[in-house]
């Protein structure tokens, strides 16, 4: 699971109102290099919940993202490289996503988060 996916997902348990962001717990991770596409990064930037990305990348042991970010920073190649790396090159292989409201644990196995709900959660 890459961190762009993490930035989309929200706890889907019935009745939960503050399900975002899911807290990330990492047991095993890998890095895979992909080509940097500046236009893509510039387009997606306004949609990204920055703090969620920063916290998730830190949980993955990548401390390079600044606490705050604004669109003017996209002109810096150094910033783009870090943003790109955090968003698209870090993969959680094993671990869990934790609902911030209920503490319910959604396991991540073989890189796939399991967001299936139990009967009493839908």
């Amino acid at each position, binding site marked *: 699971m890459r961190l762009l*996916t993490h930035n989309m997902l929200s706890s889907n348990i019935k009745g939960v109102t503050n399900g975002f962001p899911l807290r990330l717990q990492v047991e095993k991770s890998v890095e895979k290099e992909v080509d940097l596409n500046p236009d893509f990064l510039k387009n997606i930037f306004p949609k990204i919940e920055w703090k969620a990305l920063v916290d998730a990348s830190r949980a993955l042991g990548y401390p390079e993202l600044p606490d705050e970010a604004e669109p003017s920073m996209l002109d810096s190649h150094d910033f783009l490289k870090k943003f790109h790396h955090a968003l698209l090159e870090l993969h959680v292989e094993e671990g869990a996503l934790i609902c911030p409201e209920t503490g319910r644990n959604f396991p991540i196995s073989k890189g796939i988060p*399991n967001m299936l709900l139990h009967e009493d959660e839908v």
Partner: protein
Amino acid sequence: MMKLKQLESYLGSLQQFSNPKVDLEQYPTGPHIASRLLYTAENSFGDISGKVVADFGCGCGTLGLASALLGAEYVVGIDIDSQSLETASLNASDLELDLNLIWCDIKNLKWKGKMVDTVVMNPPFGTRKKGSDMDFLVAALKVASQAVYSLHKTSTRDHVKRTALRDFNAKSADVLCELRFDVPQMYKFHKKKEIDIAVDLWRFVP
């Protein structure tokens, strides 16, 4: 840009359901239909290349991988069935493509905002469980910012149009073409060797 025939042949090499499940209406999306759906989305509307694309009910990953082959920047595949996700993951590795898989029931999907540009899907037609194709459509229109491509039985055309525009607040709902969907004899209740269903390829704007 990849040629249509080339795309179709890549998709023809993918593994399909080894053990299809009746209640989930797991019919494979054939390479013919899948390649035409994606080719139209890219060539006529520019909805794939460089975009975030989600494949709802991705099964073995055909539509999602087709999107990646046509240059989608980030492809998410969602399915309720873990075996399908495993096959999708193998298919992605075979083609050396990245598919971001999520194990989830589309009905219970909850995402923050509209991070996805385009949704592509071949939903269950709702023959086993009435209305399941419309459950997929309403979920897709909620997360997509640009377009939703979907296949629905031609016999339900008026219902799909009315529901999308009136109940799901789609800005537009257009049938791009009519296709034949060959459902091979996979289940015991299929008496004929192959069932040929008329389906519409739709483009919805959320």
